């Protein structure tokens, strides 16, 4: 599989702080790579280095097999960026903004017109063409931001936390849109600390922590990396310590916690863990309320691998 991006041994220091510590990354063409990590882990720094906006101390960055530099204009032609902060002109309307940015890449007037219309349709802003940014709601503004970044149909697109402060409806539409772009052949780098989104759309995930690769792989591969395969939560009033200890010793169980009238047991492996828990409770005549069986989330993965929560 051809590599869209290859980052080797990237080091970036801010005085004494090491923001990126020999960071490596490989992004295959046609995939959606999720870059996960808490604030300060180096996600945005990585992207800015890859885009040659930020200088770095050591390392090599190749995009489509060519070295990426500030004046690598051929490569830049194929890159699109949707930044965390909305990057549009306040004094120009939706159409003009998209037209401007598309025009930086597409010289041909007719082709550009077509692309701009397609971009507007893609993000669903047909009814807002003449609106100024200040008249758009948060969600619509984000959509404009996206349109400006992808109008020129780039092969490689970076999305840096594009759904911050966006209503759920718009958020879903954005995620759908990203999938559509990917289906059309774009390679996508998607950063976020909303793991649900990452789980939803990304083919592979990189978990970053302290400027390093903490873990890399598909969702399933990542989840296999950790001990936890299943968590079962039961609503129980007044559970005795003895029972907690017993359930801890159930097959494949490795921890049991009880707090706020909720019992949570973590299992590593095993197929019928839920049945066993319920059987035990029925045997002991312990009344219980709701029961949840959850597969480990990326948060759990992250927690185990780094020792802290994703949203710290």
């Amino acid at each position: 599989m051809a590599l869209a991006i290859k980052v080797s041994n990237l080091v970036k220091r801010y005085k004494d702080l090491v923001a990126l510590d020999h960071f490596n990354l490989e992004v295959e063409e046609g995939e959606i790579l999720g870059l996960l990590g808490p604030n300060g882990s180096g996600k945005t720094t990585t992207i800015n280095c890859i885009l040659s906006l930020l200088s770095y101390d050591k390392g090599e960055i190749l995009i489509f097999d060519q070295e990426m530099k500030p004046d690598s204009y051929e490569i830049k032609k194929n890159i699109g960026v949707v930044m965390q902060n909305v990057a549009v002109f306040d004094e120009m309307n939706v159409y003009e903004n998209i037209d401007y940015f598309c025009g930086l890449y597409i010289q041909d007037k007719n082709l550009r017109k077509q692309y701009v219309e397609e971009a507007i349709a893609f993000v669903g802003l047909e009814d807002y063409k003449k609106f100024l940014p200040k008249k758009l709601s948060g969600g619509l503004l984000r959509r404009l931001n996206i349109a400006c970044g992808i109008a020129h149909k780039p092969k490689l697109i970076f999305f840096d936390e594009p759904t911050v402060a966006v209503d759920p409806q718009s958020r879903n539409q954005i995620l759908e849109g990203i999938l559509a772009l990917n289906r059309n052949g774009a390679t996508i780098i998607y950063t976020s600390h909303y793991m649900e989104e990452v789980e939803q759309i990304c083919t592979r995930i990189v978990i970053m922590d302290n400027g390093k690769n903490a873990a890399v792989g598909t969702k399933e591969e990542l989840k296999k990396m950790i001990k936890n395969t299943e968590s079962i939560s039961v609503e129980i009033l007044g559970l005795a310590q003895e029972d907690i200890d017993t359930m801890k010793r159930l097959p494949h169980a490795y921890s049991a916690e009880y707090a706020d009238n909720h019992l949570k047991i973590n299992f590593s492996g095993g197929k019928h863990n839920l049945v066993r828990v319920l059987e035990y409770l029925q045997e002991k005549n312990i009344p219980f309320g709701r029961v949840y069986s959850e597969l480990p989330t990326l948060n759990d993965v992250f927690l185990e691998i780094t020792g802290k929560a994703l949203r710290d």
Partner: protein
Amino acid sequence: MFFHNFKYALKSLLKTKETIFWTLIFPIALGTFMYMAFGNLMDQEEMFHSVPVAVVSGKENSELETVLLALSEGEDPMLKVSFMEEPDALKALEEEQVEGVIYTSDTSLLVNESNLNASMLETVLEQYKQIEYVCADIGTNNPGMLPEVVMQLMGDQEYFIETTTSDGCQNEYYNYFYAIFAMSCLFASFSAISRINKLQANVSALGMRRCLSPNGKIVAVTAEYLALLIVHFIIELIVLAYLMLLGVDFGGHYPAIALILLLGCSIGLSIGVIIASIYKLSEGAKMGIAVSIGMLLSVMADLCAAGIKDFIEHHVPVLNRINPAVVISDSFYALNVYDDYSRYTGNMLILSVMAVLLLGISIMILGRNKYASL
């Protein structure tokens, strides 16, 4: 690509109505106030007009009265004489209807203040007394020649030839108007700061996106700069037209004036670009610096008080050579007052060098595509 950026830079600029409005309104408003304040000042204060004077006659000195009357006859007389009783004369003096009161009984003068008109009246009376003395002196020692002497003394020979160094406008208050242009050129730096902030990745998200375009940043910078230059230049021309309409006489030479304004705007914009590249500051702080620099340089070019530019010229002239506000102001002056273009040309050279130098520095700073931190 250049044209695409240029088109949008122009569009974008013209849409920020507020900034354009104020960059235009400020010099127009200031010019209007100045014109209202001293449109007529030179004429009123410095040019000679017949001096209105009240004369309180004493019975004894009809000769003085004859002389005074004679002086108020004809075209453009020296005096405008009104004979009055003392109380009326004092009232007229207090109400400033006359500049002074002459008492013919003792050839004395009463005035409100020590000013030019008072000195004029004093001179008239002194001359009268002095001629009296000379007549008496010669009459005593050489009475035969007296009639000829009297003829001589009463004649109006002019022993001097009066020339002037310039036919242009010598109104020193014009320094203020020249300074308005200097200031509004320098204030073009505001627009430059706000536009350039949108091009820098370490200042705005918009700048970041534009830094990723597949063209050199120089293209975008040049396009923005050109758009800014055109818009500001046109604004200056509008201000010029307005002031001329009001009645300020810049002396013709319009293409030459246009060149001053073009270079002036260029310098103002370049200063703005350089300030904008100091990335550690907020936009507000950058504007503050731009205002400070603009105001300081303009005040040194006589924007608020006349005489500063001259003072510096006599003590540290090199400061005036490197202060673009002064060079701009001096260019206007030179065009108005001198017949040849040598001084003007010298100033244009200085402005051109400044413009090119500042522009060069600003492009170099902006050309940086990679930042150590964002």
